[in-house]
């Protein structure tokens, strides 16, 4: 069924925040097309009236007693950060002005 174009792959990469190269676009377009054509077989299965399963074991809401327990210290939380300032994560500007 699917044939996925290079432009569609570029769009997916943008949505997924992947700055893929031109060479990758060509490679991935071909590979994703093969994979999608194969997995599209699921749409041939007759599943009217079949409920979807999102989780194999019947998952219900799990509650716990509302008691405080220690989390990470500020120092631990920041320990893997690329850049910090005044005890906080330092990040690039978040608004794109262009």
């Amino acid at each position: 069924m699917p044939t996925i174009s290079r432009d569609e792959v570029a769009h997916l990469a943008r949505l997924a925040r992947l700055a893929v190269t031109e060479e990758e676009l060509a490679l991935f377009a071909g590979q994703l097309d093969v994979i999608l054509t194969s997995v599209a077989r699921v749409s041939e299965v007759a599943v009217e009236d079949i409920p979807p399963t999102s989780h194999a074991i019947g998952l219900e809401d799990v509650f716990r007693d509302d008691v405080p327990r220690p989390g990470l210290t500020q120092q631990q939380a920041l320990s893997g950060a690329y850049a910090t300032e005044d005890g906080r994560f330092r990040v690039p500007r978040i608004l794109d002005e262009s």
Partner: protein
Amino acid sequence: MTGLTQLSAAELAGRIHRRETSAVEVTQAYLDRIGAVDTAVRAFLHTDADGALAAATAVDQSLQRGDAPVSLLAGVPLALKDVFTTVDMPTTCGSRILQGWRPPYDATVTRRLREAGVVILGKTNMDEFAMGSSTENSAYGPTRNPWDLDRVPGGSGGGSAAAVAAFEAPLAVGTDTGGSIRQPSAVTGTVGVKPTYGGVSRYGLVAFSSSLDQGGPVTRTVLDAALLHEVIGGHDPLDSTSIDAPVPPVVAAARAGATGELAGVRIGVVSEFRGEGYQPGVLRAFETAVDRLRDLGAAVVEVSCPAFDHALPAYYLIAPSECSSNLARFDGMRYGLRCGDDGTRSAEEVMSLTREAGFGPEVKRRIMLGTYALSAGYYDAYYGQAQKVRTLIIRDFAAAFEQADVLISPTTPTTAFRLGERVDDPLAMYLSDLCTIPSNLAGNAALSVPAGLSDDDGLPVGLQVMAPAMADDRAYRVAAAYEAARDAADGGPLWCRVPDLEAVSR
């Protein structure tokens, strides 16, 4: 290679606890073995000799004081897949994006191992974020199969399986999302268990596909796997999908299986997992295993699970979808790699550049596949449909378990393939997990136990034993009985026949 590294974990623990040897001596023997062969095998991404010897010393001191061993595995070394967080070692998930990352907390599995006195030797190699079937997707280079260094050790947990097969550790922990414990075990001649989903805590297991990921043991014997299962398994309030029930009695089942017959046990052969695409030698080894189970008194029946034919496509929609969401956390802001932060670029641009540089091709493919499957207009046809197929697979399992106590199949359609053989063909790579995926989608327990060597290439074959959810003990009982019968018939365990790697490495 000293005799110590050839012993099972159960035997090592016995000797350590009886003070016939020390945990330090055992740990040193394994560290020496790693030093001798890991340049060839490359099972480890990181080893911590000082930390391991300190943990072993603590066990020895406690025993010397006359304390009872803190667990049945106290003092026994272990190799931990690099997807579990460890405060004292890096956790990279085989990815550049987490190169050198030191987590600020231990995974529950890590904590339980430490509390049980298990000595963690280091972290093992894996396909990046556990996506792959050959360990070739690791950013740090592939691991090699100890049976043939030109072949893959399977994946994603190739490092854990290779470490155990190469006598670099008697025990390892892996994770299994679509077969990443069982398939490497099959192709390296080791025992690998995917417990019932929710049986082992996922807290601190870096998430790939949260509804499928499950940690479990990798060992050389069924009993060792059971002993490790009981150490790492059990309810964890920090994982809300963890099952709040006692661990199934897997150690008792493994012990009973090893001495008992299988009279009265009904074993179902899954008819969908034979035929085209299966290596003839693998099928012959499987048939021999079926005969052996019949000789043990089991009633072998044929069961059909037609929805299993759709498991692979359903998996490759569900797992990438969950992966595209889970891996969104790697944004270069709070931990891990950051690229292109030159003071002018926006957070979004920096994030895209970071992920481009930090992720390998398979991870990118799966993120994009998941992004596609979840996009408006495709959701119902792909992700929604795959979730319904998942229901059909669960129903097929339920019907099959009416007719049989356990189900069996080959673990993987072929023996270990050559390095490079499938890297450029993702679909061929995905076929490695054909037989293992249904149990991930249905959440039930499944394991792989060595079933001898394929007569066409002399490489290990795995027998997969699947049991209903929370009946993990059934799979252990059958596997232990089969293992004992196979060893008796073959004149010793399969792992005795692993090539002499120290000769190869020299």
